[in-house]
């Protein structure tokens, strides 16, 4: 089934550890995004990529990095996790940057202790 796959589904991580959240899409979408979802704060954009080889910062990029080596993969890395990064992380893609609808993954629930 075409769509977005995120891994892991959930993770408990000790503060200070490095963690990479994986995201893969098979729809050949150009644009990909990482959002975090927090109660009362909604969805906030962390980083995005309009096309393979390019990335940009969203609303809350600090503490996170991304890469877009190819069209399908858009991993999100936490270099040194902190408790405030406890959240549910959603990867999304759209056919083109801008106003085309987003397709979301199932999310990764991350707890930093």
């Amino acid at each position: 089934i075409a769509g977005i796959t995120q891994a892991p589904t959930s993770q408990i991580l000790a503060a200070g550890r490095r963690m990479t959240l994986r995201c893969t899409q098979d729809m050949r979408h150009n644009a990909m995004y990482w959002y975090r979802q927090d109660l009362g704060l909604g969805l906030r954009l962390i980083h995005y990529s309009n096309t393979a080889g390019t990335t940009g910062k969203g609303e809350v990029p600090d503490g996170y990095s991304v890469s877009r080596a190819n069209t399908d993969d858009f991993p999100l890395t936490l270099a040194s996790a902190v408790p405030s990064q406890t959240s549910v992380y959603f990867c999304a893609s759209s056919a083109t940057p801008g106003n085309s609808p987003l397709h979301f993954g199932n999310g990764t629930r991350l707890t930093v202790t």
Partner: protein
Amino acid sequence: AQRVTQPEKLLSVFKGAPVELKCNYSYSGSPELFWYVQYSRQRLQLLLRHISRESIKGFTADLNKGETSFHLKKPFAQEEDSAMYYCALNGQGGSEKLVFGKGTKLTVNP
């Protein structure tokens, strides 16, 4: 700057009652607006977009540029409508990034 405001964090109605989830936006240009829905334990998915002017699952939303609103409405709520609803805005020719509101959790009681 783009901003989306959903004034209600929680909304509770009874089955069969009308429901309206409010969304106001701030954007100087011509916006494109969306409603996304997240049912329990499921991924976020697009519910509808204003340019389509369609009704999905009985929901409609009309863009009111004068009031800068894009409220989501359904005349008769069903229990299966219980979910988290997010209004989102994309500025045409602008930031190329979707900005979401903080969401409204709708509960439809039997």
